């Protein structure tokens, strides 16, 4: 598995990522935690040349992407370099962080 977990509404089937007790669409409570395969497409992508903490700076920068998972949920990930918007990717956990790479 990808290691990526989402929450899923038991009532309407809507998926989301952030911790919350009730479905943001239908307000049903007690969502279930689900593991997902991590497939998705790049919604946007950047290369950060100036990190928020100097010790995080990497020569050449590091890529961050927003990926729309197949479940319809947008998640922020570290990413392999050179990804383009619309490109299919798979998101997996790498060193504890979600990471998007070409399929």
């Amino acid at each position: 598995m990808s290691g990526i977990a989402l929450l899923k509404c038991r009532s309407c089937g809507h998926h989301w990522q952030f911790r919350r007790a009730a479905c943001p669409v239908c307000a049903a409570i007690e969502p279930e935690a689900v593991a997902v395969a991590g497939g998705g497409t790049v919604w946007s992508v950047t290369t950060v040349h100036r990190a928020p903490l100097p010790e995080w700076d990497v020569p050449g920068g590091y890529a961050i992407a927003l990926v729309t998972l197949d479940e319809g949920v947008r998640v922020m990930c570290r990413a392999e370099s050179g990804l383009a918007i619309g490109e299919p990717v798979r998101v997996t956990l790498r060193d504890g962080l979600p990471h998007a790479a070409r399929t």
Partner: protein
Amino acid sequence: MAHITGVAVTAFGKHAGRGPVDLMETAALAAIGDADLPREAVDGLVSGYATTYPHLMMGTVVAERLGLKPKHAHEARCGGATGAMAIVLARHLIAAGACRHVLVVGGENRLTGQSRDDAVKTLAGVGHPEHEVPLGASIPAYYALLAARYLHEAGATERDLAELAVLMRRHAATHSGAQLTKPITVDDVMASKPIAAPLKFLDCCPISDGAAAVIVSADPSPRAAIRLAGWGEAHTHQHISEMPDDLGLGAKVAARQAFETAGRKPSEIRLAGIYDSFTPTLAIFLEALGLAPAGGAGKAARDGRFGRDGALPLNLHGGLLSYGHCGVAGFLAHVVEVVRQMRGEAGDRQVRDPALAYLHADGGVLSSHVGLVLERAA
């Protein structure tokens, strides 16, 4: 009815040795003087926050410093939209009959009161603590993700975005209080150091010290009746991970409400003050608000639409991108410029007869929006 009766803004840049309360005091006293009010007439106060002095009760701190005994005082927090939000709150306090003259004030030594790394780290904290901040995202990175998506959807180019930075610098050159006044070109923007692709250094606003204040009153000032005719808010999300697919949705919702409450149409406005933390912020707003065609904000800037003599003069003081950005006072400077223009007091920057103006700010990552319609009585 609520009116803007007093405005003041300091120069933005470095005010070494002066703290947020010092800076707010300067702007507040100037705005009270501008409104020609005795200090004791100010019976309400909404202050901004300061990242360099995160006090629990900034509203009360400012009231004490100014020697005010207001019926209402508190500190508002809504990121870059705080100043505009505070003006809406002032209007609501007046409409409720709670206050007659509300001081809205923001100020901060964001440039000299902390290290640049501390400023970047603090701002990055608007991201999600679990799912965004640990990835090493920064405020420029969040806006870079918006910028990349905007360029993809709108078919605009990085050079188009650069036009907006060039325009703001040109405007700032005409204002003695602006932080950045050296002329720049599109090529300069393109050649400036990369921050978070596609944003370069000159696509980003500077960090500044400074302050600004606005007095919102029940009755108009005898010298110019500038009425807060319309106001609107939208809060579509906090984190970019959860933002709507439509980049301009929050701006559209807030603007629609603002124009509806004013009973006016966007096509009627003759002056604009639009939040411009990064060049894509400004492009997304101008296009979402219908003030430029989709993908066409940069071209419209190049063609002179937003200049002093253009069809829709915009941020004539230089905006956040060149007048500067010191937090809550950043957008209040837009309000000050629009009000001075509407009063005919803008000197060399004065536009022709701006009787109706629109102001728009966002906080977070296009998260919270406030739109204001200002109307000058005939």
